[in-house]
């Protein structure tokens, strides 16, 4: 390659490479914390692109969005500006796993986020291809673009998504490409490799987009949004949205379709071995589903709108790497898609990622100062997972430059903490998706109390506006005083009261009982006991919900708090990052190697490394105890 002429193009505190969901949160956090920030993308039209499914939220992911919001991030606010359908999932289950998921208008989501970036003081938007990160003595100095521009900076956040050495696969055809027809980022991958980074290949896939008019919806089950719209952002609670919601549709694959897939399996690069990248198990291609669940006669397919201003429809559940002509043939065997017209084909994309165990829990590289990584490059999948990492990386880049203490959330504080701890601790070999089951303490980590958990932290960081902080504090106070009040409201066993109880299918009371205790009955709740509580203050839905949850699940929450205490004990047993585990007798060889690799910062983190067994942890605990005793002895002498 010809030597490019370099020139100094500017000076920034923080430069974020990539303007996907991780990039925008990182850039906004840094800028909002007062640092001179630039966000760079290969194409300004791809800012906050929803390149795959048109949804935000869902189980686990919805929790992340709420947490990002509580900390002063943008994702929740932006989807509240651009959603076209809203549903709360899991409502038949407990409040801890209720999950908000909405359909996004993709274009609108992009446009609204771009506006936010454009209007942010301290933030510069720049379309350019970053081809190198400039380092000096293992410290970040700047970035170099393809046109030779050198931007000096103190910290860099790499949020390259699926662009880094992206390669698209459609059947036997494959070529270097970013997602959805964008250019790939090849030179940066080369540069990182030259610096000694070990890059691995991950894979993800997306289904076809089809023309709305070519679908027979009469054969499908309609899936409308919820009547009551609950927003994502805590700032929008109680707001009247007044939008007409777009429905989605449920339909099924057929045996005939499965037959076509089986017949053409050898033409899929996944099966012929052309793709090295590992794909996510929970988001399998249709080929995978048919092969792995061979006895299943049909699979679900959801038809979802891509936006209000387009007739493109997303065919959820049918991502594929089969050749284009096979794709069309098999899609036409889906019920209702007999005459379907493709607008964009399904494809798989393979991209470079790092092994995130080289990162600290701030998402900073362990050896290279001020180099941060966020999003898919860390081995995660999903918009929400990316955004959460972007936020944490942006915050910590800013804190580093300010010379302040890092910001780390632990597993008992937030799903974000679980996500990042998993990424930097466990060697995941497939793209990581957030799920509620990954969170040990989900009864306390609810999506409805994310603000109560995190907003104060966000405020201290300078990310949360005065208004948001005030709202949260008021909410906190209202919940507390209502809980206190309910403990004092006594219900007497009068005839009228018992009639009301009976009408609610609840056993009459013989002795006076507080309203607080009555709410605990499984068949009762806060709202339906209103007839017994004439002096009840008018409270917002979100506050009523908190009150009810706190009362009804008090026992379980207490149990979980005890688990958390236990967890903190191990988390507080710190391990020296320079510790040589080969020196510790009794550890298994595998544990020694893994521990030396990852260098956990606490016994708690060590216990989550795969290959480190409880016996190894016991050895570590004994080692620490011996060391402590020895040190104490030395001090005494």
């Amino acid at each position, binding site marked *: 390659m010809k030597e490019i002429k370099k020139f100094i193009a500017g000076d920034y505190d923080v430069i974020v490479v990539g303007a996907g969901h991780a990039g925008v949160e990182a850039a906004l956090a840094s800028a909002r914390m007062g640092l001179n920030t630039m966000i760079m993308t290969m194409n300004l039209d791809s800012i906050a692109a929803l390149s795959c499914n048109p949804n935000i939220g869902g189980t686990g992911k919805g929790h992340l969005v709420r947490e990002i919001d509580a900390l002063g991030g943008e994702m929740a606010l932006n989807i509240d500006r651009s959603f076209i359908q809203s549903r709360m999932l899991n409502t038949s289950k*407990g409040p801890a796993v209720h999950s908000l998921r909405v359909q996004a208008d993709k274009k609108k989501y992009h446009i609204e986020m771009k506006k936010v970036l454009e209007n942010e003081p301290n933030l510069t938007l720049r379309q350019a291809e970053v081809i190198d990160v400039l380092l000096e003595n293992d410290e970040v100095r700047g970035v170099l673009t393809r046109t030779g521009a050198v931007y000096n900076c103190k910290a860099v956040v790499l949020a390259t998504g699926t662009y880094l050495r992206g390669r698209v696969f459609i059947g036997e055809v494959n070529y270097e490409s970013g997602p959805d027809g964008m250019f790939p980022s090849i030179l940066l991958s080369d540069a990182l490799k030259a610096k000694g980074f070990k890059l691995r290949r991950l894979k993800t896939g997306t289904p076809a987009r089809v023309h709305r008019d070519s679908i027979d919806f009469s054969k499908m089950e309609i899936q409308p949004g919820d009547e009551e719209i609950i927003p994502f952002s805590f700032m929008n609670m109680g707001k009247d949205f007044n939008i007409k919601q777009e429905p989605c549709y449920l339909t099924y694959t057929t045996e005939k379709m499965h037959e076509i897939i089986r017949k053409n399996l050898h033409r899929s690069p996944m099966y012929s071995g052309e793709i090295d990248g590992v794909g996510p198990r929970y988001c399998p291609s249709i080929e995978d589903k048919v092969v792995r669940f061979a006895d299943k006669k049909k699979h*679900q397919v959801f038809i979802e709108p891509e936006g209000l201003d387009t007739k493109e429809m997303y065919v959820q559940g049918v991502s594929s790497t089969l050749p284009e002509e096979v794709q069309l043939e098999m899609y036409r065997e889906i019920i209702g898609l007999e005459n379907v017209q493709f607008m964009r084909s399904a494809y798989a994309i393979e991209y470079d990622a790092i092994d995130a165990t080289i990162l600290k829990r701030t998402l900073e590289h362990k050896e290279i100062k001020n180099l941060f990584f966020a999003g898919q490059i860390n081995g995660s999948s999903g918009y929400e997972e990316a955004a959460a990492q972007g936020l944490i990386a942006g915050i910590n880049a800013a804190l580093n430059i300010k010379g302040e203490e890092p910001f780390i959330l632990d597993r008992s504080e937030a799903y974000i903490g679980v996500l990042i701890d998993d990424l930097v601790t466990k060697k995941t070999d497939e793209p990581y998706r957030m799920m509620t089951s990954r969170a*040990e303490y989900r*009864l306390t980590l609810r999506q409805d109390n994310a603000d109560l958990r995190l907003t104060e932290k966000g405020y201290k960081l300078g990310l949360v506006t005065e208004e948001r902080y005030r709202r949260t504090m008021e909410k906190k106070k209202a919940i507390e005083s209502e809980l206190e009040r309910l403990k004092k409201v006594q219900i007497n066993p009068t005839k009228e009261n018992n009639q009301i109880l009976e009408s609610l299918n609840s056993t009459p009371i013989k002795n006076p009982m507080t309203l607080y205790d009555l709410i605990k009955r499984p068949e009762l709740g806060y709202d339906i006991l209103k007839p017994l509580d004439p002096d009840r203050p008018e409270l917002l839905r979100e506050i009523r919900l908190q009150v009810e949850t706190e009362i009804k699940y008090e026992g379980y929450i207490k149990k979980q708090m005890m688990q958390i205490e*236990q967890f903190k004990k*191990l988390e507080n047993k710190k391990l020296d990052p320079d510790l040589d585990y080969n020196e510790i*007798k009794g550890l298994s060889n595998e544990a020694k190697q893994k521990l030396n690799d990852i260098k956990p910062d606490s016994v708690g983190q060590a216990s989550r490394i795969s290959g480190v067994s409880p016996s190894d942890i*016991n050895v570590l*605990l004994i080692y620490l105890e011996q060391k402590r005793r020895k040190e104490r002895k030395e001090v005494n002498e």
Partner: protein
Amino acid sequence: MTIAAISTAVGEAGIGIVRISGKKSLEIANKVFKGNKVEELNEGHSKRLVYGHIVDRENNKIIDEVLISFMKGPHTYTREDMVEIYCHGGIISVRKVLDLVLKNGARLAEPGEFTKRAFLNGRLDLSQAEAVIDMIRAKTDKSFETSLNQLEGSISAKIKEIRDILLEMIAHVEASIDFPDEDIEEVTYEDLEERALKVKEKIEKLLETADRGRILRDGLNTVILGKPNVGKSSLLNAILRENRAIVTDIPGTTRDIIEEYVNIDGIPLRIIDTAGIRKTEDIVEQIGVNRAKKSVEKADLIIAVFDISRELSDEDFQIIDIVKDKKSIILLNKIDLPNKFSKSYIQSLIGDKLIIETSVASGIGVEVLEKSIKDMFYSGEVEIHSDTVITNLRHKNQLEKALENINSALNDIRNYIPIDCIEVDLKNCWDNLGEISGETIDEDILDKIFSEFCIGK
């Protein structure tokens, strides 16, 4: 550091073993051992018995004629290089060999240090390490077998069985929560209830053995009760005569409590002979009486002795009151003397209890008593051999916690509480059980265990 200790019980025995463990085991062995045919022990001799003498090289004096075995790590008890020297029994010879070993570079092992090394070197998991401690502390052969069973992982296997059910339940609950859109089978309350019941039953079954486990380890708490001169001491002596007494803990006057450990066909008894229960002004005797009442409260079995040659007194009636709702055997002693009341009379007072007529002084009925004791606690000896018996208090406590949690889960399942709440109890239960096998890390566990190592060998 290479350690050494005498590994057999101190006392008269055919052989005594001195054990050495650590890097320098072989080197030390060669300093003290002179083989008849073997010039020098080397790795080729690993796990072979070599005949020769222990010789103090300073004065070339032979200490003992021995068999020696070198065992190359890591396939040894401690996973380190080990040497065992089989000396002639008796304290003097073994002691001298140990002294010589220590003089040649080994350090005297702390109590439990071999086991500790075995554990630290990953040779044993927690439950196994504890079993070793139990084994060391086992007071009878039967207890020894139970510990051995646990050592082989039979507890771990049972626990794993229960944890597997719990894991399935948890996985099913998680899947329902995380994939509400997928057409996977929703978890049903009926299904959860069925499985929770299974878990509960299995835990209960293990717990049932816990009491027996304690009995096996500490001995069955057996209290002999009766007014003065009914023949309590004679009874105790009769049992001791026929069986091997193990320890005499508290020697004292007849007014105090006498504890004896005795082994009846492998079942350890801790027999407590009490002073008679009666109102007394004598302070020494008063203390004895109070302690007798306390022992009765803690007793696993009461043997109440009545003198059939005397009329029943107030004290006898008091005793009848005490034993009425306790596990007890009634002895009508001095049956060879003229009877003052009948067996059926006392049966009518005391209800459905086993009554044995004895003359302890002339040895009548003692065997019947012993057989009855066995029958009462074990319905058949075979069961003891094959059962996994929980002998460890920590295990028992964890099982109790696990039971509490599964009961709570069961209760919630029956009340249709949301599954994510139920899961909290299921997870706790899973963790409780994991702590027994050491699969769950409990930060406090180690303190508990290592405090026990100091008791062992």
